[in-house]
């Protein structure tokens, strides 16, 4: 019996050695620091972690994450991961902009990357930035909402009024107006990315005011928005990920921001020795960095989806520039 187990162990070891040996000469290590939302935020931290997991599966890199509980954790978390000797360290979210820059300056040999933040000309050579044109998918879901509303009234729930979230808001509003110039858009910010109860209250209020579709760009707050839609039998539109699984009968579509794709993309470039430091990479419809959820076809009629496809082509072709700020929006609707 004992002999057998020894033999088996030896065999297993050999097999592992053989399997692991030839695939990669060097095993890369990648880690990420979440923002205060944590790794299970149903939103972009989670999406970023999914990108890491895909990199682990497809590229064989070793991955880890470290959660931040408060603002003051960003810098020390960066330090900790830097000391641990990762090949690439991600900061998830623009809140980490300062922390990454300071750490990057002191550790010029270490590669960093950040989501949703660009330093412009001051980007350190060892930092790669991934930014998104969130207004584009918002525009598309706005168009769907404008076409599908029966009450001529739709809603938007934002997290905290950052320009980043305003990109969602104005892209969405432009889409609605294009589809249905008479449609009214109710817009409100929850001043939080975590308070689901507040999201629910705001959405309920909008439904009571006779809105029938509410789009949210508010992280964890959106859980409440979707719950309100489910209870009231109305439509909600998800964000960042395909959120249809949260309420299959009530999530109409989702404005996807493929943080996972961007993360995977940059990790792959790094493993191939083509890390793009010192600049920002823009993710949009053209490089599949954003889009609408594949489950949209469940509830959205094909005719409308065809129109959306046409819009996508126009945006890619540059015939339509989707507004991302109030100024651009005002010009757009004129």
């Amino acid at each position: 019996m004992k002999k057998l187990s020894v033999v088996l162990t030896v065999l297993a070891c050999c097999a592992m050695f053989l399997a692991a040996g030839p695939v990669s000469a060097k095993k890369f290590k990648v880690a990420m620091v979440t923002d205060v939302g944590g790794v299970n935020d149903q939103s972009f931290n989670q999406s970023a972690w999914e990108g890491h997991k895909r990199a682990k599966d497809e590229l064989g890199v070793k991955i880890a994450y470290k959660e931040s509980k408060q603002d003051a954790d960003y810098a020390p978390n960066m330090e900790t991961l830097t000391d641990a000797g990762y090949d690439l360290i991600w900061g998830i979210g623009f809140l980490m902009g300062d922390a990454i820059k300071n750490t990057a300056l002191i550790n010029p040999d270490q590669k960093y990357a950040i989501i949703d933040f660009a330093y412009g000309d001051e980007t350190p050579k060892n930092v790669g930035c991934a930014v998104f044109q969130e207004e584009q998918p918002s525009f598309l879901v706005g168009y769907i909402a404008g076409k599908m509303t029966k009450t001529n009234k739709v809603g938007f729930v934002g997290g905290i009024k950052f320009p980043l979230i305003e990109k969602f808001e104005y892209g969405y509003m432009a889409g609605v107006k294009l589809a249905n110039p008479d449609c009214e858009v109710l817009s409100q910010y929850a001043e939080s990315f975590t308070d689901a109860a507040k999201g629910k209250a705001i959405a309920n209020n909008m439904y009571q005011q006779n809105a029938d579709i509410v789009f949210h760009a508010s992280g964890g707050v959106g859980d409440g928005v979707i719950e309100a839609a489910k209870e009231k039998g109305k439509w909600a539109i998800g964000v960042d990920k395909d959120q249809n699984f949260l309420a299959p009968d009530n999530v109409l579509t989702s404005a996807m921001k493929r943080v996972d794709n961007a993360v995977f993309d940059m990790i792959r470039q790094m493993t191939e020795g083509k890390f793009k430091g010192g600049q920002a990479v823009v993710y949009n419809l053209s490089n599949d960095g954003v889009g609408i959820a594949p489950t949209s076809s469940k509830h959205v009629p094909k005719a409308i989806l065809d129109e959306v496809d046409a819009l996508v082509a126009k945006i890619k072709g540059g015939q339509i520039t989707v507004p991302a700020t109030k100024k651009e929006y005002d010009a757009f609707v004129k």
Partner: protein
Amino acid sequence: MTLNREYLKEVFLKGPLGLTVISVVLGFVVGAVVLLIAGFNPIEAYMAILRGIFSKPKYMSYVIIYATPLIMTGLSVAFALRTGLFNIGAEGQFIVGAMVAAMAGYFIHLPMLLHVPVCILLAASAASVWGGLAGYIKARFGVHEVISTIMLNWIALYLSNWSVTLKSFGKQGTGKSYVIQETARVDLFGQWKITEAGIDFIRSHRFWGDILKSPVNVGIIFAIILAFVMWYILNKTTLGYELRAVGYNPHAAEYGGINVNRSIITSMVISGAFAGTAGALQVMGVSHRIAKLAAMEGYGFDGIAVSLIGNNTGIGSVFAGVLFGALKYGGSKIQDAVGAPTEVINIVVGTIILFIAMPKLIRMILQARNKKG
């Protein structure tokens, strides 16, 4: 020798120290069990924590930096508790202190020697008002301070978030305020560190360079001074006598001619000042600005735990704050090192507090052991 041992036994069995030590040990034991159940090796995890605290000078420096605000919010809670009040509002007072310090640090232009004290003073005063308000509401309308301070916490949070939206104070589009003037900062070599000379120094000096990688600041000195101030006020002054009397027995204090209502307000004012100073020093030493808060950051709530572990004393809060800072900073390292969730550290802390709150149980354990031995 025997006398000494007897004495030690006495202190350990009857005093709060033994209770605390046992509670801390039990906390780690329970944490280990949780780790085991979750499928992680507790020894490995705890080694990761120890390495994460002690293996580099920078880490120890970070522990101190994490501990600094917790010591002060701990003092805030402890001061109130010693005078019979439960200040849940240290959180809000911290936020108000941070906000006012950030404003004073940004708007006011003064030489450093004046600017730093002015910022701290303004922040502490504002937080005093915040705490004193809860005291006033209790004294005047009999509303329990737990209720009013919880409300004031939220008001503080939203007030602070609103202030960041002001064009003159908040940097538009970042969700953060402008950074404070250099003359209002209490961290050491903050600007020089990111100059070329500074980066060179950091890269060439192993010990000091490593320490400088963390935002070293003088906050801890303030925290220790405040711990002394608390001890002094409570034990050496007539004010402290009044406050303690009211805390222990308001009926007797009233009988003795002490104005109980005024004492409640005074106590909350001082408690608020401690928490406000914590917020101010966090801004002036570490963050240099405030940011929109998505939720309470928990400095004040952690202060409650620090105060309890520290037996509501000044010196106790200092040690408990360092312990808590170490757990918070070092504890998070089990996440990337062994992949275990940091929640385990929260369980450890929670268990420590639970055991401290059950002194009888601990004494029973101690005495049972004694009988056998």
